[in-house]
């Protein structure tokens, strides 16, 4: 018997021990977000279409930047860590409008 993660995959170390790989959804479900109705980050993906780098896709720790089949970027602010990675790596002026959520909203860490 081997342990299996939510996505059915497993991580096998070189020594052989296996343990379940957690799905990204399970990972993000461990974090509390007090979502405000106003998005604190807005992505203008008409600008992203001209971007050849798109560093946000691999760098965002919450995996919030999803490339679409028509060359755009799908973004949702709700599970954002408010870390700043996306605007720091963004290559295109004006693509990301970044601010903090309203007071008391957004990510709330408890055992970090």
């Amino acid at each position, binding site marked *: 018997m081997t342990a299996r993660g939510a996505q059915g995959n497993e991580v096998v170390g*070189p020594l052989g021990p296996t343990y379940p790989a957690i799905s990204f959804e399970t990972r993000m479900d461990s974090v509390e977000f007090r979502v405000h109705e106003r998005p604190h980050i807005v992505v203008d993906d008409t600008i992203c279409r001209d971007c050849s780098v798109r*560093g946000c896709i*691999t760098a965002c720790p919450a995996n919030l930047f999803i490339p679409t089949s028509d060359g755009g970027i799908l973004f949702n602010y709700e599970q954002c860590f408010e870390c700043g990675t996306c605007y*720091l*790596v963004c290559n295109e002026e004006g693509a990301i409008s970044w601010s903090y959520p309203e007071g008391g909203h957004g990510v709330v*860490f408890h*055992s970090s």
Partner: protein
Amino acid sequence: MTETTEFDAVVVGAGPAGAAAAFELARAGRSVALVERGPFPGSKNMYGGVVYGRILDTLIPRWWEEMPVQRWVTRRQTMLMTGHQALTIDYRTDTWGRPPYNGATAYRPDFDSWLADKAVQQGATLLCSTTVTGLLVEGGRTVGVRTDRPDGDLRAGVVIAADGVNSFLAKEAGLYGEVSADNYTVGVKETIALPREVIDERFAVRGDHGVDIEIIGCTGEVPGGGFLYTNADTVAVGLVLSLPALAAGGSRPEELLAALKAHPAVAPLVEGGEVKEYSAHVIPEAGYDMMPELVGDGLLVAGDAAAMCLAAGVWLEGVNFAIGSGAAAGRAAHAALRSGDTTAAGLAGYRTRLESSFVLADHRKLREAPHLVMGDLAQRQLPGLACDVAEAVFQVTNPDPKPGLVRIARKQIARHGLKLPTVARETIRALRAYG
């Protein structure tokens, strides 16, 4: 009609820098507002695990009797790692598990809330769930902040920006030069639940003693490092990753973290536990060379907002630098208010105070260290070279005779494509950087 509230000082951000600043101002009898955008202090904060509390001696006598500690660090390890090897330097002393202690692991929501409460006990006004949206500026001079509360302007003689690594206040005031992703890393961390006894067994510690491990060579093609440390009944494992390299594609943070957790030196320590919380935060990695101007007219910058994290490989510290700079900012603001001059000239004592303390002394002395740690040699060659040398030293090759340590070193240096003059030059550079 806009109603404004007037304080001697407004401190933005109730992390360790802001709490220490508010503490010192309130202790000196100043009216001070400590403004926090999260629902409680520390709710937006995460870190790589250890609070070095010595600087707290200046604020709270016998702080260790009340600080919310997870474990006192009595084992400190540095691990050099390749995909299948690990070489660990392991220092342990029970002395660090007794007063006056050295470092402790703590949950930031607990620690930051505790320190902010200390400022409140001195008389500071803590305003949580309040996001500062910008500076109030009159005649080129900072005179307060705007908040997202109704009628939420707060006027003050001095504003202290302790608003974290992204410090939009320091940027708005023009205190930062060009902001480059090259100077930043992102930290990602899993807090993994395990029974206390299991942690004690796996890490060979007892009671409230714990372990902090810093790792290099565990981030694949992305420059960075890793960490692993014990809380009371959780283990935290995380990575610090260069932003430009991460953005260049290839691996995502959680994939690199999964690989570290599967490493033979790490898997037995973390396996079987459930992820209790995942977290991420950006880190100002480049130290002294990325610091903004620390003083403006009516404005001081402290903690991560002033890039005061020390990422120097063997030393990875931030909370203590935040407390040290915040406390100095509070004292400098009080002195400026007393003299009636809160212009940049009147507040210049802040920088002087920092220069004569560990905050800027350490950063200036170690200004090359962050670059060395994130450089090719430390990232791509040192871990493999060190592990291969260790393997060649400890592996018994009978019936062949032992090759001798010098021959092993020369052979491995050559095998790793390095030349002796390069190694000598880089060793001298490292000695200078850390001297």
